[in-house]
């Protein structure tokens, strides 16, 4: 009797999961049926397409490099320096995740504009964030760093505190502890965090468009190009870029999942 119930349970969960996956695949792969191999290959030869993809790669690479430099100290503070403001810091560093990217882009646009004292000061000193690649880096950083910080923090959280205390009694300074133990032990988490924040940054559209000004070759990233091509009615080009973006995401998601599974099986 129990066995039968269990079989029914299994069938139910499999059916629901399968239906969901099938729908998702049909929805997303739809774009590939709107084109032909011939058209796809033809569009691949378009220099503008590669320009936008290259720009997206370049900017997102800068974004994750900055993430790596500032994200590790932030994750360290959140994970190891527990204090009364930890909760507040956690909220601030996760906030961009729960806010519309459009709103973030809009906020940066306003703050960095010439009417705002901060923006005015920077512009007067020759630093421009509106309609420039550095503006794109800034908004993508704000949007992608919570992914990096949260994954790295989770990874740091799983490190045995007693082990770190013990290493100090062997003569390790805080620098030694970070570089010789914490980072090497969290290697998988850091890679997973980078993959996640990279794919978030390379696919970012709303906030990017707010500050980019859509200047071809300078601020026109791949997702913006998809929108621009669609609005001109150039579907084959839009489909090609969208397809490539999707494959890139899939690739990095694969890396992320691979390493996060490794973290799970290697909890110390």
């Amino acid at each position, binding site marked *: 009797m129990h066995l039968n119930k269990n079989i029914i349970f299994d069938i139910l969960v499999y059916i629901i999961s399968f239906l969901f996956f099938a729908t998702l695949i049909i929805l997303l792969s739809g774009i590939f049926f709107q084109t032909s191999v011939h058209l796809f290959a033809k569009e691949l030869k378009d220099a503008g397409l590669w320009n936008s993809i290259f720009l997206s790669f370049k900017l997102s690479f800068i974004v994750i490099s900055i993430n790596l430099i500032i994200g590790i100290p932030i994750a360290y503070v959140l994970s190891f320096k527990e204090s009364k403001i930890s909760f507040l810091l956690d909220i601030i560093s996760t906030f961009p995740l729960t806010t519309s990217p459009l709103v973030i882009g809009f906020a940066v646009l306003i703050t960095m504009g010439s009417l705002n004292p901060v923006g005015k000061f920077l512009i007067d000193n020759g630093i421009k964030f509106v309609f420039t690649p550095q503006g794109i880096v800034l908004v993508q950083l704000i949007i992608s760093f919570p992914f990096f910080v949260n994954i790295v923090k989770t990874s740091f959280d799983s490190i*045995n505190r*007693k*082990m770190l*205390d*013990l*290493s*100090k*009694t*062997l*003569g*390790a*300074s805080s620098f*030694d502890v970070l570089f*010789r*133990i914490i980072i*090497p*032990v969290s*290697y998988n988490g850091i890679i997973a965090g980078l993959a996640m924040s990279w794919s978030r940054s390379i696919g970012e559209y709303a906030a990017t468009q707010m500050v980019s000004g859509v200047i071809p070759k300078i601020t026109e990233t791949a997702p913006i190009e998809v929108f621009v091509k669609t609005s001109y009615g150039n579907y084959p080009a839009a489909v090609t870029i969208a397809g490539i973006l999707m494959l890139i995401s899939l690739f990095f998601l694969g890396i992320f999942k691979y390493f996060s599974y490794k973290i799970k099986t*290697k909890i*110390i």
Partner: protein
Amino acid sequence: MKLLEIKNISKSFSNKKVLDVINLEIESGEISSIFGYSGEGKSTVLKIICGILKQDGGDVILNGKNINNLESCERRTPLVMDEPLLFPNMNVIENIEFGLKLNLSKRNSDNYNGKNKKLFYSPKEIMELLGITGLEKRYPGEISMGQAQRVSLARALIVNPEIILMDEPFSNLDIISKTKVRKLIKDINRELKISILLVTHDIEDVVNLSDKMFILNDGKIQDSGHPKEVLKKPSSIDTAFLLGTENILNGIISETDRRNNTIKIKVKDRNGDKEAGVIIEADFQGNFEAGEQVFLAVRPEEIIILREDRDVSKPVRENRFSGKIISSIFTSRMMEISIKSEENLELKVLIPFHAYEVMNLFEGKTVNVSLKKSSIHLIKKKKTVKNPVFT
């Protein structure tokens, strides 16, 4: 020579006082133990010594130098804990060399090895001493718990400390590894002349290893001295309980006689209300007066069950009782026997298993027991008793 001094250390955690003005002195070259119930702040003492925790008040003095303001990494007081806590990203040899690499720069500039002590043992020598040669390239997940604990010891030794702090280093080891590691600790102490401060809740560890023991109870050091002395002569009833002295009787001193080396005590019944009608004689112990209320502590292994087939020698004629065996339990090494005397006193006795068999003992049998005068230790009845005596 004094190596480590703890002076008036106090520590509270969220208003709960864990350490209440603790004083310890550890001699160079000795193994000392801090013994007490779990959760009494034993580990806190170690953490304060090595600088992981900051004390609320008091001083830690190492080699005559106050190290209160030194960071953990500057104190050279390595810690070995109950788990090996090896770094999972390094293999065995990298784990062992961890402290060596960090200290390499300090090693040349420091002159702390001015004494004629051998300078820094090589990882190879240490691995040989601890019997872990051959494991160099293995990762922590690939070796046994006992081996890992030895690697952890090697990792502490490599920084050439004068003292190693050990926090329950045996609690996760099986009995064979435990015996091995205990022996290694003795070897380290003897051959490398490294002092050891051990924290444990296992009296076996204390008796086996240490030259001096401190009993930490209620945030205070209640007793200290050579383990055998402390074990035989606990200074308070709390200590007696902690040390597993199960035979504690209530009594009132009826007579003290220094010349004949005797104190006579009228023993009360189990509740301590009425006199049981028994007088026990003990060796003379100072500071007791006739009419004083006392506790009598006798360790279960000191009580003798008399053989029926032999004449009794002099010591076993002292304090003789007759009683019935009401229970006998086989523990891993000894038989634990409860005997109820005709006067309604209950005594716990430990005897070797073969003796139990040879003497043909069994539950319900009536036997004669003797409490040697020298085995009876008197404790003044003044302190409040933490655990009720008879429950």
